[in-house]
């Protein structure tokens, strides 16, 4: 919309910004200053590193997947095992960082939105750890799809507030979380779960997730003595993708491949692929690619995976797309489901349905990708939370 210099201030090229109610400006200024000061404080970095290692279990392994290589007839293929983190996904990297920041700012109340429930669980977890009040907004459709995670959050002491407006999914949970923040901004910090929202969230969440790519680079250097040829990650809001991409953005030879959810197919209109099939627009505080209709109303998203079921995407991905630095492909519900089963059988790894989208692309295009060098896939989460849902889809009743 309004071209600016690349990655200047609050923007990535034209994308990003702070399109929020006036009430939040002071809080965003406060957060920006706190993040700047904390980033410069060695004690903050040391405390976060300690928690990531001793509490979350980092570094996560980089696992070479021989049976995937055999299946696609090429290699090497490595899986970055974010599924092994505490709470089962990459989300904990961000929530630990933001909880420390909340404490830094003296805010005792935390709110969050969640789709699949992974970010909600990761937030509830750190709130238990730091003794913070925690409210998680979750669409009623997701509450149903992810009942086990709802109970997990409650076990951890969080209050889960179902949201039944709009499409009753992640987008609407985010609206409601922003409404809460506008209302309780003085004592509340909003832990956004992805690289979305108004500045500084997209760059701050990316920085907290960048540990994924930094570790990957060092681990692959140790194993192969070189950079990856390609890095593949699923993209909903896009935090695991930005986290693993970030370290490699300066290396133009490394292909960065984001995989969006094509749902029932891009032509069906029922998908969650704004980078592939959307246009730039403003939702939840930033300008980025967006699913919308001709009148600028946000179009409902669809994906088999609650974590990808979102009509927007992080502004930095929009910038990487326009710049041609990253490429974005799509995977349908059916292909993701097939990859979910296939990786389970091949490697004994049950992936989250989100991560199964990235795996599906590797099963399909892995041989071609491997010609550029080692393929690294971000296995962003484990599939325990999806087992009951997949069983239902397969016509089996699995007791949660």
């Amino acid at each position, binding site marked *: *919309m*309004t071209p600016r210099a690349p990655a200047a201030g609050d923007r990535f090229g034209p994308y990003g*910004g*702070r*399109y*929020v*109610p*006036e*009430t*939040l*400006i*002071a*809080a965003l200024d406060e957060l920006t200053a706190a993040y700047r000061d904390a980033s410069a404080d060695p004690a903050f970095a040391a405390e976060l590193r300690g928690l990531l290692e001793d509490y979350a279990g980092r570094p996560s392994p980089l696992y070479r997947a021989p049976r995937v290589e055999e299946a696609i007839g090429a290699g090497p293929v490595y899986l970055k095992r974010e599924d092994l983190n505490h709470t089962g996904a990459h989300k904990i990297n961000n929530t630990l960082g933001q909880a420390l920041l909340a404490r830094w700012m003296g805010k005792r109340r935390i709110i969050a939105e969640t789709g699949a429930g992974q970010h909600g669980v990761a937030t509830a977890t750190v709130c238990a750890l730091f003794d913070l009040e925690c409210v998680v907004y979750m669409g009623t459709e997701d509450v149903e799809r992810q009942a086990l995670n709802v109970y997990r959050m409650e076990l951890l002491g969080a209050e889960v507030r179902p949201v039944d*407006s*709009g499409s009753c999914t992640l*987008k*609407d949970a985010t*609206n409601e979380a*922003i*409404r809460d923040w*506008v*209302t*309780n*901004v*003085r004592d509340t910090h909003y832990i956004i779960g992805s690289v979305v929202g108004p500045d500084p969230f997209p760059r701050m969440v990316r920085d907290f997730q960048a540990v994924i790519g930094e570790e990957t680079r060092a681990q692959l250097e140790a194993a192969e003595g070189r950079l990856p040829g390609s890095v593949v990650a699923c993209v909903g809001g896009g935090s695991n993708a930005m986290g693993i991409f970030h370290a490699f953005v300066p290396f133009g030879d490394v292909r960065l491949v984001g995989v969006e959810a094509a749902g029932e197919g891009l032509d069906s*209109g029922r998908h969650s692929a704004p980078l592939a099939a959307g246009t*730039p*627009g*403003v*939702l*939840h*505080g930033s300008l980025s690619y*967006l699913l*919308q*209709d*001709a*009148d*600028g*109303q*946000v*179009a*409902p998203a669809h994906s088999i995976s609650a974590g990808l079921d979102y009509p927007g995407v992080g502004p930095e991905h929009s910038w990487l797309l326009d710049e041609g630095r990253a490429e974005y492909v799509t995977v349908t519900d059916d292909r993701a489901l097939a990859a979910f089963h296939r990786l389970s059988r091949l490697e004994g790894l049950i992936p989250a349905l989100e991560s199964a989208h990235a795996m599906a692309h590797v099963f399909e295009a892995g041989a071609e990708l491997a010609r550029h060098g080692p393929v690294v896939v971000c296995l962003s989460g484990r599939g325990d939370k999806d087992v009951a849902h997949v069983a239902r889809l397969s016509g089996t009743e699995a007791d949660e």
Partner: protein
Amino acid sequence: MWHGCRGPKPMSDRVHAGTGMSLAQCFAGCRAERRAALIPFLTCGYPDGPQSLELLRGMADAGADIIELGIPFSDPLADGPTIQRSSFRALEGGMSTEGTLDVLRAFRAGHDTPVVLFGYLNPILRYGVDEFARAAIEAGAQGLLLTDVPAGSDPVLEKRLAAHGLALIRLIAPTTSPERITVMAGAGAGFLYYISRTGITGARAQLRRALGREVEAVKRRAGGIPVVVGFGISTPAQAADVAAVADGVVVGSALIDRCERDGAEGVQEFVAALRGVMQRDGPDPPATSSRPPHPG
């Protein structure tokens, strides 16, 4: 859901649309009458297109000084449940940005009450920023208030929105720094809109006690630009309290609540009752409202 909806057909009297009274004239008139301006809000397309046109006319006839006309949006994240509901209903009925301008054109055929369009950025981006800025003026709007474009967030965009004469109305929150208020007043057009509390739109049983003092502080920095107050004002008694300190009083969710209960007549009655308490040295405001307040 709302794909491709373009709203009602353009109304036949669009060519005759007037331009409406300026905001400055309006506030000058209110000042001369020693009263605050009454500014009711309505979501365009609520309960449907034709009825919202009738509601607009009724509000103007009942004494509204300025009308805030909401452009419905699918994700109204600064709005409480009442205005959310009215927005969804308007969109389900096919209301759109173009349709909102059509309703405004039809209203202009018989009324010169100033209108401020109220909404969110994305439908404007989709419409085309320059196209919208021009079309809104041509349709007879005086101002534009976008809740998700805070002052200075996108200077080039803000300049383009104002290029054809729309007053960009700025929201000031209790959390807004004094420095920002001074900057907004310096660039300010039309009026400044003080949000009565941190939070979203919606009726409240009670206003905060510090409100009067805060409004006075904003007025001291406003450099003569009128300061109106909105969010949460739901009864004539509350409106009277605010009218005593502010240059204008915005009432939104409470009107839509009233419309849900009592229809167009109830809205007109309510606007007339609110108008009756705008006078600063007039009769004492009623001690309590005729209806129980509805906490949002």
